[in-house]
């Protein structure tokens, strides 16, 4: 599934050479650099920063995993800003020069962020669908009814948390918009591969999608006519494949959890007509940590 999202080779190359140049200067002439940016003599720190710059630069120029190296530059920029800030407490620093240097770093950081986001999107569009996600849930309704609710694709954003909208273009194709946990907006077109009323829907994304995936949802009559067993199976593309997907789970919700939660909301909608929530309810004064976990309360 080759995709056609534009990569940023020119920007990547420019940032790569800039990185190498700056790194070499920092390694070879740390004192001059220190005076220039107003932090005074911090040769060891500056040489270490230089080595980091060279590594990021060579990585970017190699053209391999540009998203990773572009992101490493963003991390480096944040580190540099922190070091510049810390240097201000030293009597040897020159605040005016430090401020000028910080402004320059912030400008470059913006470029780095833009490049890394574009590279990540490009990598996602190229990734092969080899990361599996499966989930299942019993719903107290008939397979026909659950199928009908799902088949009306406009219903999906009502229970899929990251979906913004689904628009059916014709019987087979539909246009989807989602917002990822990181705030990135993804668009794709999906086409239905198989459609058996009351039993199964399977789909795959079209070639020009920003994220590749294919999957199916099955509606099986429960044993003893006890509701419907809904089984979802999705394979999605992740830059770096299954290993990267596992690593990503350390920092964000596992895809299985997301899909299971989506199914739970589907179950609530079908069985009760609404989704159980406490968003908008009152509470007393929260602690700092508490506020992070209770967004949405009044």
């Amino acid at each position, binding site marked *: 599934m080759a995709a056609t999202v534009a990569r940023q080779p020119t920007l990547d190359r420019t940032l790569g050479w800039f990185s190498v140049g700056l790194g070499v200067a920092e390694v070879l002439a740390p004192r001059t650099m220190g005076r220039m940016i107003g932090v005074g003599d911090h040769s060891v720190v500056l040489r270490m920063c230089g080595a980091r710059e060279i590594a990021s630069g060579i990585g970017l120029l190699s053209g391999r995993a540009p998203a990773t190296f572009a992101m490493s530059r963003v991390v480096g920029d944040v580190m540099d800003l922190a070091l510049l800030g810390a240097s201000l407490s030293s009597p040897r620093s020159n605040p005016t020069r430090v401020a000028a240097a910080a402004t320059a770093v912030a400008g470059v950081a913006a470029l780095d962020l833009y490049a890394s986001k574009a590279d990540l999107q490009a990598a996602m569009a190229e990734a092969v669908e080899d990361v599996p996600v499966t989930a299942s849930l*019993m719903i*107290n309704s008939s397979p026909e009814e659950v199928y009908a609710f799902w088949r009306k694709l406009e219903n999906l954003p009502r229970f899929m948390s990251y979906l913004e909208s689904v628009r059916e273009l014709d019987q087979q194709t539909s246009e989807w918009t989602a917002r990822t946990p990181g705030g990135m907006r993804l668009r794709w077109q999906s086409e239905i591969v198989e459609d058996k009323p009351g039993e199964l829907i399977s789909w795959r994304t079209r070639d020009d999608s920003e994220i590749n995936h294919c999957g199916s949802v099955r509606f099986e009559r429960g044993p003893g006519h*006890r*509701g419907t067993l809904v089984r979802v199976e999705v394979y999605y593309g992740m830059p770096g494949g299954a290993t990267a997907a596992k690593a990503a789970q350390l920092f964000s919700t596992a895809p299985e*959890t997301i899909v*299971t*939660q989506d199914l*739970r909301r589907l*179950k*609530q909608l079908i*069985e*009760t*007509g*609404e*989704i*159980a*929530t*406490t*968003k*908008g*309810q*009152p*509470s*007393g*004064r*929260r*602690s700092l940590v*508490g506020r992070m*976990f*209770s967004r949405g309360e*009044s």
Partner: protein
Amino acid sequence: MRAVCWQGIHKVGIEDVPDPHLINPRDAIIKVRKAAICGSDLHLYDGYVPTMMQGDILGHEFMGEVVETGPGVSNLSVGDRVVVPFPISCGNCFFCEQEMYSLCENSNPNAHLAERFWGHSPCGIFGYSHLLGGYAGGQAEYVRVPFADVGPIRIPDSVSDEQALFLGDIFPTGYMAAENCNIQEGDTVAVWGCGPVGLFAIASAKMLGAARVIGIDRFPERLNLARRVGAETINYEEMDTLDTLREWTGGRGPDACIDAVGMEAHMHGIQHSYDKVKQALRLQTERPGVLREAIQICRNGGTVSVPGVYGGVADKIPLGAVVNKALTIKSGQTHVHRYMKPLLARIEQGEIDPSFIISHRVDIEDVPDAYAMFRNKDDECVKVVVNMTSNMAS
């Protein structure tokens, strides 16, 4: 509005918070008239229930007046006087259809958290940790009641606020504990803990035909109330519980045993010290002394019924006795909805007046002190009812 908020271990406070509003179509807003502090609130107060957050509004025993209903609630009208069950239940899922309301699959928005702890999630519960939904509770001037078309029942004029209040939790909880004992004519039932749930379990066991009910506690005022509802009593500070039960039952043991104490049991001896140390070190979350005794003394083929609250893992449970004596263990959060109407009928017919357990009546500003008093059993405290309508700010 003013609300009772959990602020940390042994810290509750009255805070000004925004009024609740309708969120879902099947919600109603209730203006609370009477709320109660439950023995299980003390487990929150003592910090033994995980996932409480500073600012959580407490309270799952309350009754009041309907002030607003969502478009999905057609059985209630503004002005209705209602009592609200503590479990939040949808009425549509597999479990609700079988009247196992406390196992509702659709009311806990944090079900995934509970599943990590227990494998599966029970229903959401008002004011009882984020593991059970994080719903704002009823120790407040107003409360949002989800699935209001399923839970609250109207209180007839002949029944007072205080008589109806306990239909939301402890009366059905004591009743279900007794019902779980599968009481046969001539049975002897032993009840550990003569607090509110234990007292209702005793009264219910009598109503269900037990020949003999034995209440076990150490506080004279609670033992007095137990005798008032028909129990013989054991003060375990003066008599050995197991020896006495063995003697009184001719060695056979009680036909059914009810643990109305739960995770913070007070016992004697080395075993109690061992449990306290392990609980303090978080090597176990419970102090299961009562459960051990109940299993040990229950007669062969008998039933151990556990309405007492447990939350995590316990140690040294005599499973050998469970197997070799062919015991049945029954438990669960109460399926309150199932019992409200039949028990309301018993109140109307004058069979029981649940308000007999009330020892203290306070206003909302006195609630923090009341928690401490109830916890320490000071001033012969058995049950605290909070009058929410005095000095209303609005």
